[in-house]
């Protein structure tokens, strides 16, 4: 499905398409880019986009954004996702960047924004804590003002790719006596500070994506506070709004469906009754994607006319993740007995993996995709948001 594009937008789409075709690094085309690339490899595309001026579609022009319209941003998102490019690190560009240019002071903007754009600084997100989960307002990590520093103590968890990070943006409690949401501040912490320890969390797919981050008496310069003390919750909510957009994942789902179709064709002979069952199951998912894509396009068209999409992001998150989980399940089923095998991490060990190449990441994707309905505000929470904000329940 396509937006009805103006000639200018159509030309823009063609430009994006051919730029990707000509410039996407071949060494990033590995079986599972999310787990198989080194930090340096995963930054290759980031640097290419930066050089082109396309690294931060969301950012205003004055801070280094390309100055695109809503439609152009959508086209870019659609094309990069359809082409299977690894998106630049969201924590840097999509999350902390906009917080800094919206709520940060001039010094913070000058210090951090260029390094985010260039990929020089890798950011991770210090929101979740062992006790908090989807209820972020219960942050317990404490920051106590001591002269021109904060002394930070606490434990962050599920910190994605903290093992690569140069900086972490943290929600910390600065006023223990205030109500949960009003005593929180937004603090930027250098990962090289003494007292910061990263411990890997291995997930059920065997990969190392998330971490515990321990903060023990970490001295953080007060100049790293974003905005006002105790106003962090406002900034955090602003950021979560950005996190939950573009979670429909239409491009990714479409690519995985196409791959699934090839697997079914290769694995299950047409005379096997399972073949027809798979075709039907795939068609159902394709219709789910079609409906979600149509919804996304409708929302984009409304946004282009200046209408606030409201909690549409929650709808995209719920359906986008459910759809992708269904695709990974079906793919795992399609490879039959080979679904019993799983690649060993780290992948560089290059151990033997049975079956055709197209099935080699099916098990790990299936297992890894279980996280989608949990993270970024669980799907139960997203339903609560729609119930409250849309249905008025």
């Amino acid at each position, binding site marked *: 499905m396509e937006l009805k594009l103006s000639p200018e937008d159509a030309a823009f789409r063609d430009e994006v398409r051919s730029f990707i075709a000509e410039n996407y690094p071949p060494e990033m085309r590995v079986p599972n880019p999310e787990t198989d690339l080194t930090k340096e490899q995963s930054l290759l595309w980031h640097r290419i986009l930066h050089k082109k001026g396309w690294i931060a579609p969301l950012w205003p022009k004055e801070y280094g954004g390309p100055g695109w319209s809503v439609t152009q941003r959508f086209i870019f998102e659609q094309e990069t996702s359809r082409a299977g490019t690894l998106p630049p690190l969201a924590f840097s560009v999509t999350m902390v960047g906009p917080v800094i240019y919206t709520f940060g002071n001039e010094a913070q903007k000058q210090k951090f924004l260029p390094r985010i754009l260039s990929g020089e600084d890798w950011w991770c997100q210090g929101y979740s804590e062992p006790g908090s989960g*989807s209820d972020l307002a219960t942050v317990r990590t404490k920051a106590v003002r001591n002269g021109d520093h904060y002394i930070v103590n606490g434990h962050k968890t599920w910190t994605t790719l903290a093992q690569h990070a140069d900086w972490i943006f943290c929600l910390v409690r600065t006023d223990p006596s205030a109500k949960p949401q009003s005593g929180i501040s937004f603090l930027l912490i250098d990962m090289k500070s003494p007292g910061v320890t990263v411990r890997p969390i*291995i*997930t059920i797919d065997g990969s190392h994506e*998330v971490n515990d981050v321990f903060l023990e008496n970490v001295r953080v310069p007060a100049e790293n506070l974003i905005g006002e003390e105790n106003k962090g919750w406002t900034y955090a909510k602003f950021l979560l709004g950005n996190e939950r957009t573009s979670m429909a994942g239409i491009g990714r789902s479409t690519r995985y469906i196409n791959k699934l179709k090839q697997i079914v064709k290769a694995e299950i002979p047409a005379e096997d009754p399972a073949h027809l*069952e798979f075709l039907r199951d795939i068609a159902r998912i394709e219709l789910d994607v079609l409906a979600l894509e149509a919804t996304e396009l409708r929302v984009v068209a409304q946004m282009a006319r200046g209408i606030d999409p409201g909690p549409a992001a929650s709808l995209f998150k719920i359906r986008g993740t459910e759809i992708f989980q269904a695709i990974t399940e079906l793919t795992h089923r399609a490879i039959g007995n080979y679904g019993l095998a799983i690649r060993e991490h780290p992948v560089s060990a290059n151990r033997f993996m049975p079956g055709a190449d197209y099935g080699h990441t099916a098990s790990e994707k299936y*297992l890894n995709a*279980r996280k989608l309905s949990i993270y970024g505000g669980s799907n139960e929470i997203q339903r609560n948001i729609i119930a409250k904000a849309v249905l008025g329940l």
Partner: protein
Amino acid sequence: MDIQFTEEQELLRSSVQRLLRDQYDFEARRKIVASEEGFSRKQWDAFAELGLLAAPFSEGAGGLGGGPLSTMIVMHEFGRHLVVEPFVETVVLAGGLIEHVGTPEQQQSFIPEIIDGSKIWTLAWTEKASRFDLANVTTRARREGSDHILTGAKTMVIAAPWADYLIVSARTSGDDRDRGGVSLFVVDRRATGVDLRSFKTIDGRRAAELGLHEVRGQLLGAEGEGLAALEACRDRAIGALCAEAVGAIGELNSATLEYSKTRKQFGTTIGSFQVLQHRMVDMFIAHQEALSLMQHLSLSLSAGDAGLSRLASGAKSKIGYAGKFVADQAVQLHGGMGMTDELNVGHYFKRISSINIQFGDPAFHVLRYAQLDAAA
């Protein structure tokens, strides 16, 4: 239809429970899975000593005569503890085949070494293109003297790296997908021409791709009539796997319920949210139904009921879907913790996912259930 266990069965259950509680907690299992070999000889010997490896065999074959109900009891407990040792492969699959179609000489020669724990076996039936079809066999065997010579390849053979002997399905006549012409052979895993490429499975076991090049094998059962033997073997395997799945489902439900009563979000336990209460009620119902079907199937297996195979497929499908639902929700309700390698919940999830592949997924078996009805 609730099974009232006999004194002997109750004794079997309590002794397995005690052994696993004392020696097979989650940490012990983690060490076993991470070890070089990937399973524990020590545990295997303990199983032998306790008589578990003898339990299902008939007394005539040197066993304890417990039949499918004893398999159910053992596997249910194994499911609760995620035991990785190859009980299904050695005792249920290979042992069952030897007992049911082996000659008296073969039974006398092989079964005692299974019972005393000294030999490990597995069954190699799956091939690259076979999917879940037992009759889809391209590996070939030709007679040479009193033996046969096998050439071909088997895939995803669970426990092959641990096994001393393999039972291999190979075609002695007919076309690749004919029902007739499939025969079974005992092959020494270390024999010349056997090539193993090993790897780990998602549920922490070891498996191998098996190459067979001019390998000497000993016929097991009647030549060309291996398919019926394999089908009956699959029914028994399903009985065992269903019991294991029900054990795992029960543990997931207990863990999830416990967690929902202690985990606090938004100032209250998550178990107080109605949406999660209803979810856990559905998980409870799924467990109850699965447990009942598991017992129903095991009783039918014991009695050798007509229509047994159809019931086996029905149970594999229904319990498979129940397991998938419970495992999905157990991970979801545990949140991020459910995603970690550290917590046992994800490991139950993976074992249930594996069970749902072994001998056919729930979609395959619901279709077979329908087809066997239409054929009746």
